[in-house]
């Protein structure tokens, strides 16, 4: 043990106590969310089993949906994604694919696969966007419109798609996300129960290193990735959607309708001025803006999160790519919180102001800083002998298993609802839970710090990660 000055020791003592208090607060929050998630999941499960999806599927009164799929340099994924969208089991949909000025063969791949024909289409200019270069209609499937436009970012591409959309509900998706055939049906059935109030809806989507397998004829449900990083990301998403967002949904403060899959009511999106290109990502900011808009106007509304696993999106395969992606998420969270800081602890914004925004501020924005401070404190405490090694190990162990509990809860709730993962996948996921703290959290912590730094610098880049290596494609090439 190294001797330490008395001042340092006093500081370390207090720092350790602050660390324990912060961890305790986080645990209390997780416990509260867990209880709410159990209640919400049970309710949704029973609701799902009692639902008569067939009548919605066959009804002429089902609410039509415009699906908007922006893509930028998605040569590999654009066609499978559009096929999964055109294969939706739902009475009336249109698919608007927006090619945001790709520099690869994205547009050419779509033209070839869907037998696209160039057309002039005079559309509503409800939202300003970068100029449209050309519009294509599919000869194979009249429901498909492809818009080729100048590059302006995802928000701009979504706004462009909204200008072309004919229907009241918009399903905004990512160009690298593959959907199960019931993705729209599940969300719209829930929305059709209360279409006057539900203005936004999200649903759980998994992370896969090769999401296009969802479109395979032999697809038998989700599986783990047999790749540590991929599986940690899958568990991360499962925790976020099945535990936390379900609980937020119950508390009426669902703060993020993800860009991977989000249902929005068109009139509301137009009212708030469309997706903003001034932020790094568009999804969380839009959710905050809609909350603020509706609460200020004192209009009844709901934004819900559904537990159904309706899609698989591509997750980074390598650590630098993951750091880059998560740094972007951290950055946009901070940008959004800063922009909407006026809602912080304001009772007029109800649970959004009193719970949602404070949560994001304390446990998302400042999390990387707290985490780094905690790690440094504990290491120094150990080095200076303030904390005995037994206590140090006990704390680490408690944190490892404690942070694994929300993961176990999410796995349990998902499995009880859908029984879609194989038993061996369940066991793998459960065992990965306690390892999360040592193998995955440090990466996220580093990504968070990078994100904080990028936010301070005013960085707004998207940092799109390179597509993962496909075993099948590699085999074909060989």
């Amino acid at each position, binding site marked *: 043990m190294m001797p330490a000055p008395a001042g340092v*020791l*006093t500081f370390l*003592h*207090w720092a*350790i*106590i602050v660390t*324990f208090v912060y961890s305790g607060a986080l645990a209390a929050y997780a416990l509260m969310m867990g209880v709410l998630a159990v209640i919400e999941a049970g*309710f949704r499960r*029973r*609701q799902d*089993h*009692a*639902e*008569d999806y067939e*009548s*919605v599927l*066959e*009804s*002429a*009164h*089902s609410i039509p949906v415009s699906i908007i799929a922006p893509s930028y340099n998605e040569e590999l994924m654009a066609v499978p994604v559009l096929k999964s969208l055109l294969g939706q089991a739902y009475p009336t949909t249109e698919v608007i694919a927006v090619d945001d000025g790709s520099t690869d063969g994205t547009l050419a791949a779509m033209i070839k696969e869907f037998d696209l*024909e*160039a*057309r*002039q289409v*005079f559309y509503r200019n409800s939202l300003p966007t970068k100029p*449209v270069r*050309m*519009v294509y209609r599919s000869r194979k499937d009249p429901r498909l419109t492809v818009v080729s436009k100048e590059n302006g970012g995802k928000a701009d591409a979504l706004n462009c798609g909204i200008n072309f959309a*004919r229907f009241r509900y918009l399903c905004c998706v990512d160009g690298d996300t593959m959907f199960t055939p019931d993705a729209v049906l599940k969300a719209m059935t829930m929305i*059709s*129960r*209360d*279409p006057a109030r539900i203005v936004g809806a999200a649903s759980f989507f998994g992370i896969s290193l090769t999401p296009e397998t969802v479109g395979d004829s032999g697809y038998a449900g989700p599986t783990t990735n047999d790749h540590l990083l991929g599986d940690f990301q899958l568990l991360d998403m499962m925790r976020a959607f099945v535990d936390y967002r379900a609980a937020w949904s119950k508390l009426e403060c669902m703060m993020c309708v993800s860009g991977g899959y989000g249902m929005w009511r068109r009139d509301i999106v137009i009212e708030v001025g469309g997706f903003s290109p001034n932020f790094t990502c568009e999804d969380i900011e839009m959710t905050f803006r809609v909350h603020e808009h509706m609460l200020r106007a004192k209009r009844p509304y709901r934004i819900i999160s559904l537990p159904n696993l309706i899609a698989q999106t591509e997750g980074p395969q390598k650590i630098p790519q993951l750091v880059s992606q998560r740094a972007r998420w951290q950055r946009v969270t901070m940008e959004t919180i800063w922009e909407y800081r006026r809602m912080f602890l304001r009772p007029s914004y109800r649970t959004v102001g009193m719970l949602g925004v404070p949560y994001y501020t304390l446990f998302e924005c400042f999390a990387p800083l707290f985490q780094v401070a905690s790690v440094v404190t504990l290491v120094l405490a150990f080095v200076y002998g*303030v*904390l*005995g090694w*037994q*206590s140090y190990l*006990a*704390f680490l*162990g*408690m944190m490892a*298993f*404690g942070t*694994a*509990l929300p993961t*176990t*809860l999410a*796995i*349990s709730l998902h*499995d*009880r609802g859908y*029984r879609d993962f194989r*038993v061996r996948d*369940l*066991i793998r996921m*459960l065992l990965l*839970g*306690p390892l999360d703290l040592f193998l995955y959290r440090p990466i996220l912590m580093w990504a968070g710090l990078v994100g904080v730094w990028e936010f301070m610098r005013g960085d707004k880049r998207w940092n799109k990660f390179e597509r993962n290596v496909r075993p099948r494609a590699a085999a074909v090439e060989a």
Partner: protein
Amino acid sequence: MRTLLEVQVEPLLAVGFVVVSVVWLAFSSWVVIDRLMYDRRRRQLGLIHRSLSDPRLADLSHGERSGFVKQLLGGMPTHVLYRLAGDDAIPAWVREECARMSLSAIGLPQMLRDATPHRGARRKWRRISALHVLLHARPTAIHALLRAALADPDPDVASAAATVLQRIGDERAASILIEGLRTSRLPASRIAARLERFTISLGDVLRPMLGDQRAESRYWAATLLRNHVDEGGLAAAIMPLVDDPDAPVRKAALLTLGAMLPHGVARVATRRLSDPAPFVRSAAILALAQVGERSPDRARRKAIASSITPLLADREWGVRAAAKDALVRLGPGTWREVAAQLSSPDGFARNGAAEVLQNLGVLDWTLRGIASGAQPTDEAVDVLRRALREGGVVMSKAAALRSKDEPIPGVEQLLRTLQLEGAFA
């Protein structure tokens, strides 16, 4: 300080570690065990399903069959029997057996009590299960119970009631659902979806509603009659609703008449092209398109196109879009009527007409004609030139791109000859 950490916190850490790790281990084990038990139950159920689906079983007498089913399902917990009673994947007679077994396990009085208005979430799901089981038992009180359930403020209960009523499928059930269109908290469209699936004709039940004082009732009556053939003067009864004071009713009447196509529908729809409500104008356009599409009379289609083309200049986007769609549906035979709008003082009308001519294939046809030396008429060339001008650079570019799909020689040169070189800027 040291005392605080050593005395208060450090012992707690050891205890905390043991407690949290044991909780994690127990919880994780339970997740796996629960899943294994579920899989075992599912295998058993699969076996039962396969046995029950054996066609030879249907040939047995009722008593023998019942005995066999009871033997198979005897060990099943009541809640599984409940679920099987509402499972569409197994034969109807098996569902009935399951319902009977659930009833004998629980008893009709208790089942009827379960199906009555509830308090609390647990009772709510029991109520829903009971309603499904009672569908097979059909006690005399079932309609009353379902009426109460449909009016329940809980949308899950109301939704289950609507499903069971649709499965009962008799006239009383239809009447309850129709009443529910007005009274239930469930969105009317969800109830209408169930009414659409009735196999019996609802004409007689819905017809009196056409004269109801409430606009909502008239709307749904007119809407739900859309899939009915025009029998017994049904269309004649709907026709007056085209002039209803309530705009949604006018729209519903137009759409239904457009589907039925009775005599005189074109006349009333044409009158509604100037309706103050944009969605009524759109419905009138759609009805006219349906009339024109099915009419073999070219002159009639042209007349219909002439009445629709002015709406290319409508102030509402939805009406303009409906007009464009309708004109394309009427086919290329009406191109002159569409082309006339290229001279409209309204910009929407001009570019809408250009878009319709493009989608009708008129532009490609003329280009192909010029390229092949077939000498299209001056009128056709003039329409091509004006349409491409109104359509803007993108339209000319699109025409050039299309010509590459189905090669038209020298299209770019042709467009330059027509002074449309802007397309290649």
